[in-house]
């Protein structure tokens, strides 16, 4: 169990790094798929097959297809690759990043670090009631308000995408150039 977690985690981090480091946007997008799939695997290890399935369907499936479409449509390949140079802000950033990584390692190893109290959704509970039922129940009772308000968030994003992308004919008050 632990070994499979470490393998998946390492692959996920590797995928995430290659998203940042690859030059070609298509490779970046494909590395992101790998990261998403590893995360789905970790969800399975945590006994939440439902979330894993959703992760694959929505992130690795729908969203990544969209990403790839956009990349193909924009034809980013013709762009010159970004030049890498060692400026002092970059070095400073790397220094801070390393410092934060060491701090994180220190925190996770500190004896005082512990997780909060476990909730009632134990593995047995999930297996007994079924993960989908539990998620559905919580989503439509305890978290129904956030659930509904997120629909406003999506609405705003859709309207925004249309506003920013739509090619507008000049309005009537403006003289045509």
């Amino acid at each position: 169990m632990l070994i499979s977690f470490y393998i998946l985690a390492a692959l996920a981090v590797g995928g995430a790094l290659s998203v940042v480091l690859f030059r070609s946007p298509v490779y970046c997008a494909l590395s992101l798929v790998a990261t998403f799939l590893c995360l789905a695997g970790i969800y399975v290890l945590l006994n939440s097959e439902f979330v894993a399935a959703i992760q694959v369907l929505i992130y690795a499936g729908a969203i990544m297809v969209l990403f790839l479409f956009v990349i193909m449509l924009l034809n980013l390949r013709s762009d010159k690759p970004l030049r890498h140079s060692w400026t002092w802000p970059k070095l400073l950033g790397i220094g801070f990043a390393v410092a934060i990584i060491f701090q994180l390692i220190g925190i996770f190893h500190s004896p005082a670090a512990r997780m909060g109290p476990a909730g009632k959704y134990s593995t047995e509970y999930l297996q007994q009631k079924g993960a989908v039922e539990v998620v559905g129940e919580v989503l439509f009772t305890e978290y129904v308000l956030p659930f509904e308000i997120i629909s406003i968030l999506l609405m705003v994003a859709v309207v925004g995408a249309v506003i920013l992308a739509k090619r507008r004919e000049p309005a009537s008050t403006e003289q045509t150039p």
Partner: protein
Amino acid sequence: MSPGFTQTDFLSIMPEMLIFGMGLVVLLFDLFGQGRSTRNLAYLTLLTLGAAGYLDVMLLGQFLPGFGGSVIADDFSIAFELVFLVVCALTVLISIRYLEDRGLNHGEYYALLLFATGGMMVMASGRDLLMIFIGLEILSISSYILCGFLQQDRRSNESALKYFLLGAFATGFLLYGIMLIYGATGSIALQDIRAALADPATFQNPYIWMGLGMLLVGWSFKIALVPFHMWTPDVYEGAPTAVTAFLSTGPKAACFAALVRILFEALAATRAEWQQVFWVLAALTMTVGNVLALHQDNIKRMLAYSSISHAGYILVALVAGGEEALAGVIFYALAYTLMNTGAFAVLILSSAGDRERVNFSDYAGFGYLEPALGAAMFVFMLSLAGIPLTAGFAGKFQIFKAVVGQGYIWLAVIGVLNSVVSIYYYLRISVVMYMQPATGDSISTRPPGSVPLYVAIVGSLAGVLYLGIFPGGWLEMSLHSVSRIITGG
């Protein structure tokens, strides 16, 4: 929790529901009213804001936790919601003419403003980290789009993209912080986090501290505190002027509302630590914002830097943290909204017609060409500088009095010195207006049809003077509304 909802649940989110619902209605009207003027939509938006304000006033004095305690309608949220409604109403008033001049007859603009306002209201009334986060995201996404509303303008596009990228980055920090705090306490509800922190084992948990750090970074980005302010001038300069007025007032006030709730309701136990962080951030923010504002030739950019330093003044109140200081946060949020939006309204009115007039040199002789507008601008600048008998003074006085009362003498000294420095650049525009001769390039004529702009200017002017001369009423309400936050009840 039982699946049934009570009346209290719905009462507690009435104003938010109204705003979101009417946002959708505005979108629909825009769809079916193609080609017609969007003025009617603007008036519909104003009507909605008025109705929501009425609902808020009706809810005043209540204490209504709804939906399992994830939202609450208490005086604190209502006081902030009233501020947001004023922000949005003023923004609508100053946008009408601005959009018409640029041929942007798009009703989506007003719908987005309503959604952003609804998001801010959710942030102020959210009582768990999830609600606050969703409110923030609704606000942020609407703001990104509003920044890029001038499609043909490269600077507007740059502004939207920059805001989006850095905002998304900040959101990442915020989420990490929420995750770590959730992991350590097992809850996202502010009250439960407070209860969990009473246990010394949880209190010493390093996850809490890591989470607190991440939260502070995330919020500092959103409020544009130095050193997380780099995006502000470019975003504010590129955005449509009316949107800049909105961004520099509303979202900041909303972030402060959420921050006060999180820090004082949930993380009150860690106060000694974040106080120190904020002490440094407040001193830096006030000083750097002011020093950078000194050198600007573009008034929009100057006001962007000045908004950074004003966020610093409000942060001073968070350091002090008593009832009086937190009342100062609410008081200052309204005062800053009025004086800042008023200044932007004058900018927009004098830019109406042909081109943007946002440089200091454009205003040479303005005080004689347009005596009334010049005088209004002068009052707004006095208020921003914090001269007595204006709202800005009353707000600063309230905050610095509270800070000195809590023994943070040095912070108060830094704040007052900064106020003095800021007089230079605020009054510089008055010097240009009154003491330099008008050039051929100066503003001489104004196009007709800008009644809403005049309403905005007169309204903010009246508000600035009223709050400056009779600060009592709003201050009392602010004091009243923060009392429960402090005691954590």
